[in-house]
């Protein structure tokens, strides 16, 4: 039982991060029907952004939450800038080409960013400062929860609530929904489709950036290659929740985190990374519209 609860907690932590990244996939897919392969790299760049801020402010073992907040903000902005650039320089010029071309461009953008960061930051791992506040652990009947885990969960929850408000309560949010349902009509009623698409990329990338910094603190290091696997898993989460569906992505992320961590504990840790792929394929086969989707894709 203890193991089970511990795995649930670990799973929810990883799941929160997947959910944050998954939101970007789902939003972009919802609006231009593109699997944005480069999104995992945007998350990775966020992690580096946080790292740079930490170096800049001279963070050390005893730094507090203010520093963490600064790092998250830094990561978020850097990711936003890169996300927007990818959209403007890579996708926009060929938005009217075939889906195959778009997908291949996305793949190219992903490889480009990975190697771009590798050249700039080196191929080896870079470590995040280990903060005392985050490493404090509560031990409840043998189950340990760190402040870091609580932070990840809390930030993810807060960010998702804000996003939900943004999408459902603001003009921009409504415009996004309108474009995703019918871009032509949206244009006709005076919505600037280009702006809406850019905003979607910015918001999605910002969320991924925050996720990157959170993961940086959690694992204590970053590497240029972390985006690939995290990206695929987050995409799986998005498909699980029904791609294009924002709330679905949140639930899908948490669910994937749970399944993965329980699978690793009870089935086999060696195949931890395979679970996500198996779930991905299974869900595509059984219910491509996602767990909560209506109808079939």
């Amino acid at each position, binding site marked *: 039982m203890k193991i089970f609860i511990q795995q649930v907690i670990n799973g929810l932590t990883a799941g929160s991060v997947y959910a944050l990244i998954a939101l970007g996939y789902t939003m972009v897919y919802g609006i231009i*029907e593109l*699997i944005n392969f480069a999104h995992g790299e945007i998350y990775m*760049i966020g992690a*580096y*952004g946080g790292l*740079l801020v930490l170096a800049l402010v001279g963070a050390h073992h005893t730094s507090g939450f203010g520093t963490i907040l600064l790092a998250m903000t830094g990561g978020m902005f*850097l990711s936003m*800038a*890169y996300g927007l*650039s990818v959209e*403007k*320089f*890579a996708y926009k*010029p*060929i938005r009217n*080409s*075939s*889906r*195959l*071309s*778009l*997908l*291949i*461009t996305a*793949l*190219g*953008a*992903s*490889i*480009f960013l*990975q*190697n*771009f*960061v590798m*050249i*700039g*930051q080196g191929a080896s791992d870079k470590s995040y400062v280990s903060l005392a506040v985050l490493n404090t652990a509560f031990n409840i009947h043998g189950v340990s929860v760190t402040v870091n885990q609580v932070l990840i969960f809390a930030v993810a929850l807060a960010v998702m609530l804000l996003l939900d408000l943004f999408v459902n309560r603001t003009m921009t949010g409504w415009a996004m929904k309108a474009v995703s349902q019918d871009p032509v009509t949206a244009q006709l009623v005076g919505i600037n489709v280009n702006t809406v698409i850019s905003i979607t990329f910015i918001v999605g990338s910002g969320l991924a950036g925050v996720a990157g910094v959170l993961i940086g603190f959690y694992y204590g290091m970053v590497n240029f290659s972390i985006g*690939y696997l995290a990206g*695929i898993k987050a*995409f*799986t989460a998005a*498909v699980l929740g029904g791609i294009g569906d924002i709330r679905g992505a949140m639930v899908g992320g948490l669910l994937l985190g749970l399944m993965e961590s329980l699978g690793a504990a009870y089935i*086999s840790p*060696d*195949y931890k*990374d*395979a679970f996500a*792929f*198996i779930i*991905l*394929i299974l869900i*595509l*086969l059984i219910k*491509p519209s996602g767990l909560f989707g209506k109808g079939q*894709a």
Partner: protein
Amino acid sequence: MTSVPSIRTLFTTYVLPAVWTAAIAFPIMGFSRATAAALFMLAGIIVFTVITRRRGLRRPHGLLRARLESSRAVRHAWVFVLAAAIAAPLLLNSYSLDVFTSVLFYMMLALGLNLLVGDLGLLNLGYIAFYGIGAYTYAILAARFGISFWIALAAGGAAASVFSLIIAIPTLRLRGDYLAIATLGFGEIVRIVFNNWDSLTNGPNGIMNVPRPWLPWIGFLSGMSFTYLVLCFVILQVYVLVRIKQCRFGRYAVAIRENERASAMVGINTYAVKTVYFMLSAFFGGVAGVLFASKQMFVSPDSFTFIESVYVLAMVILGGMGNIAGVMLGAFTLVVLPELLRGFVVYRMLIFALLLITMMLFRPEGLLGKKA
């Protein structure tokens, strides 16, 4: 005459993107590289504007394509390339022979993948898994059980085809980009299995002492004789692929790529055709994998990563989707070019990624253009 652009347009199209690039590259790359990136961006935009302005005159046929159009010229070109390929192993030193053999392997893979991506317009992002399945099948059968090369060769191709069915049957019903993602997942699962099923695959250490192919009178093939063996396979594959294109079956693919509903209405079982193409494509991948394992005399999961799939895909795209000669040219270019650019090792993948993006932007039909 075009009018002189205003200061404002000059600023937004040239200066702003360049400055922006410098600004976002700076935190990651440092000052000097960020400046270089900005200049690069500027150059890119200038090229883009020039090309898009002059386009329309040139499309859709490329220069190269126009010259290759007449069937006599095509035949001459094929004969020349064939003669060169047959002569090459005799003239090359051992290092270049290795590169040449590598070109042949990638040709087999790119031609196999082209059946899906080029002919049917289906994106398979896990193609390298079939290469891996072929390689491991041979390694296990030959190194563990001492089964002969020729039997194991057939087994490798067959194994790849059978596994392709597992992924094809369910996913071919899905929309295109879901198929891409499902095949990517499949490719990863296969590699993870190679990595972890220690009792069968020896995990990350891989399988050693994989024997070379053996022929009566010649004995074990290595060096030049091995290269000739691979060359024979490439020639055979090209022959079969050309024939397929010229027959009923090739036209089914064209029809499906062009319009699936209409294909169904003239009686083509689109799902069956796609499945057969998927299996055939996997079969070629598997056979290439067997040859690869017998050349390396060693297999390990590292040879079958996602990026390898992308690499093969890039060859298909570069040369011209659906165009057999183009795909071979693509494979040749992407193997030989990096060898020539040895000094730029660090930038290799970066250039490669840019190549993918610019191809999609300027010439999605590939260097030699698409053959209908």
